[in-house]
């Protein structure tokens, strides 16, 4: 299952990239995706973040083809 992952702010600094397209195979949940990313980029384990799916902070766990998942560190607007 192909999806896009975006990283912002302190998270992008820790991963070293701002965006990647990955094929998750039979992985289809946010929780699984999170584990994969934490294993791949150990540095983000120490940081606080929340996940947005298709630009929304929804709490649903299911992922589908073409979703855009974003790792968002704490907001600092204003």
């Amino acid at each position, binding site marked *: 299952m192909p999806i896009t992952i*975006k990283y*912002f*702010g*302190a998270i992008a600094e820790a991963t070293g990239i701002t965006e990647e397209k990955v094929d998750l195979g039979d992985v289809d949940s946010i929780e699984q995706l999170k584990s994969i990313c934490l294993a791949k980029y150990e540095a983000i384990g120490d940081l606080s973040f929340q996940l*947005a799916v298709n*630009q*929304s902070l929804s709490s649903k766990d299911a992922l589908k083809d073409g979703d855009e998942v*974003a790792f*968002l*560190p*704490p*907001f*600092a*607007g*204003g």
Partner: protein
Amino acid sequence: MSEKKPKKVFMRGAIPPDKIAKSIANHQSKTNIGAHSIFLGQIRADKVDGKVVQGIEYSAYEEMAETVFHEIRESAFEQFDMTCCHIYHSLGTVKTGELCLFVFTSSAHRKVAIEACNFLVEEIKARVPVFGKELFEDETHQWKVNQ
């Protein structure tokens, strides 16, 4: 309620004081307005471990942020009897002393304009995916977190 269409909030660099004067002047033909409330965010030269902040480099999840800004404006128009509502936020580097946020509400009566402005500021701080890198003079940095 004529200004509810999506409007671009982000702008590159600091918000110049002249932009605020122009926004105010643009509302002088709207004679149903009795009160304007304005909030401005300015970059503070905070001291952290003896180092002084020189500026903040703002980035954002832009598509999501513009959507959230729009939702916040819609929600404000539903709750408050505003005539107009404008929001501008900087992206890129804004130096200490410069302005990074401009929220502007107008209404027939003062309480509505003031409450709507406060609502918008709190919502923006809490809900919009904007990130800020506080830059120190020695080229180190730390990531800002809203309280």
